[in-house]
């Protein structure tokens, strides 16, 4: 997504908030994670242009930015769908049926875990624990948690999201 923007545009976009973020830390390296997160919020993806810009803004080697972006699973390094569904498949959710829900979502969306639907609306990921085991099975869609899932609840969710822009979910 950042391909459509020049490095200078990205820099202008990020610069004001980068200063605020850097003020929280004694080293600029500490700002890499929050600035990457900021970039992902704005562009939906962190990629080569973002790495280069963040490195320049923070005056750190680009490899430092890349090693952070490639280690943490919440950084999307390829373009995702308008809505990113992260279904927890870990133990507490598995014991309450998340395996079947994953199969249902894969069939409904016709994608494997990690894939994006052809219309670009949904990305589906099976993820490790979301830390909401009391409402298992649970998923995270964009930034919102939805628990006590059933097949019917999933179908209703997909229907409600299909025409909804990503921003409206948070």
């Amino acid at each position, binding site marked *: 997504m950042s391909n459509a923007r020049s490095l200078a545009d990205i820099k202008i976009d990020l610069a004001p908030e980068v200063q605020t973020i850097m003020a*929280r*830390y*004694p*080293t600029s*390296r*500490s*700002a*890499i*994670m*929050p600035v*990457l*997160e900021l970039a992902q919020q704005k562009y939906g993806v962190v990629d080569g242009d973002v790495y280069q810009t963040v490195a320049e803004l923070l005056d*750190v080697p680009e490899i*430092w930015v890349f*090693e*952070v972006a490639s*280690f*943490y*699973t*919440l*950084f999307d390094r390829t373009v995702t769908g308008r809505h990113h569904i*992260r279904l927890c*498949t*870990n*133990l*507490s959710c*598995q*014991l*309450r049926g998340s395996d079947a829900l994953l199969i249902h979502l894969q069939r409904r969306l016709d994608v494997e875990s990690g894939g994006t639907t052809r219309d670009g609306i949904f990305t589906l990921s099976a*993820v*490790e*624990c*979301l*830390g*909401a*085991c*009391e*409402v*298992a099975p649970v998923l*995270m869609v964009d*930034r*919102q*948690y939805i628990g006590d899932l059933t097949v019917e609840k999933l179908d209703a969710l997909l229907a409600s999201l299909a025409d909804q822009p990503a921003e409206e979910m*948070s």
Partner: protein
Amino acid sequence: MSELVLLKNIHDPNAHQIATYEGSGGYQGLRLALRDFSPDEVIDEVKSANLRGRGGAGFPTGLKWGFVPKDSPLPRYLCCNADEGEPGTFKDRILMERDPHQLIEGMVIAAYAIGCRTAYLYIRGEYQLSIDHCQQAIDEAHARGYLGPDILGSGHGLDIHIHKGAGAYICGEETALLESIEGRRGQPKLKPPFPAVAGLYECPTVVNNVETLACLPHLFRRGSEWFAAIGPDHSPGPKLFGLSGQVKRPGVYEMPMGLSLGELLEEHGGGALNGQFKAAIPGGVSAPMFPRSEFDVKMDFGSLAAAGSMLGSAGVIGLDETASIPVVARRITEFFSHESCGKCTPCREGLTWAAKILRRIEAGQGQPGDVEQLEMLCGGIFGNSFCALGDGAAWALGATVKHFRPEFDALIPAQAQAG
């Protein structure tokens, strides 16, 4: 039902707001700590209360604070570990979402004790509501003079910054958490030096769990004797237990430590979802499971350690008669394999190998010797990795084989025939 302390207000929809918190006695503990105690006396009071860390290890909090060198010219840091990511564990999220001022007040008290003026609250990135409510609590606390350059006129100053994690379970390990705040991959570091001496930015640092810090306002408002009188002598204070899995009433429950695992699951969790319980994991998936025959074990640090497991995060997962233990073992091992940071060979390679064997067994393609191979791998991983991730993974897997070996054999065609 014992008195609720940490969860007293959580059903109030306004509990996350400072007016509600102050109305229920909030920030009185901080006022008393700043007025009546020197920093050293705060540490002594926490030692007297015998508050033990609620993050997993159960290390005495006052002792940990006491390790911070008093003559160091370097800045000191306090980091709150809110990177809750162990399956079965969600207690800290409940505190941060619903009553976050307890945590903020606790952080100010802890920072005062160790002479820290900048603290970081490391919250896992998925916890957006926790992040929002904690940031709101920080802003409100600033506005009321509980944070800032001169807290309540004491001369003690503190700023708290939230640092969001980004989806790496290993960052719950304290040295990995510090690496992450420094802007690196969250890979653990060899100890010593311990963070108290050389932690964040190589400066003296204390890392405490959310629940540990949330205990402090109550401890100072009501005194160390009150705190120490709750529960067993060696594991005092209010404690949160998260119940999940195949229990009828999953949720977070507060009670003194020392009740039995069976009591917790049956009386508070409402019993098994289907039939009876087969087994339970007492403290997040790294804690070795107990079969139903051992449900009389007491839920406290010492009793669980003596019984071959641990309290850990007190995330209790119930498994009923429909649960397949080999499947559970596979899922747990896959989790640790996925979340291994890759730094140590035994953890990185051993868990990948173990997960592969478990998938094979589950698919009915197990071979004679597979279970022995798993036991060998557990022995090779345990004690041979930098941090507790490898230990926990091997320990948890080993317990499934130890207690439920026939379930594994039944899935291996040659052994099922022999049996």
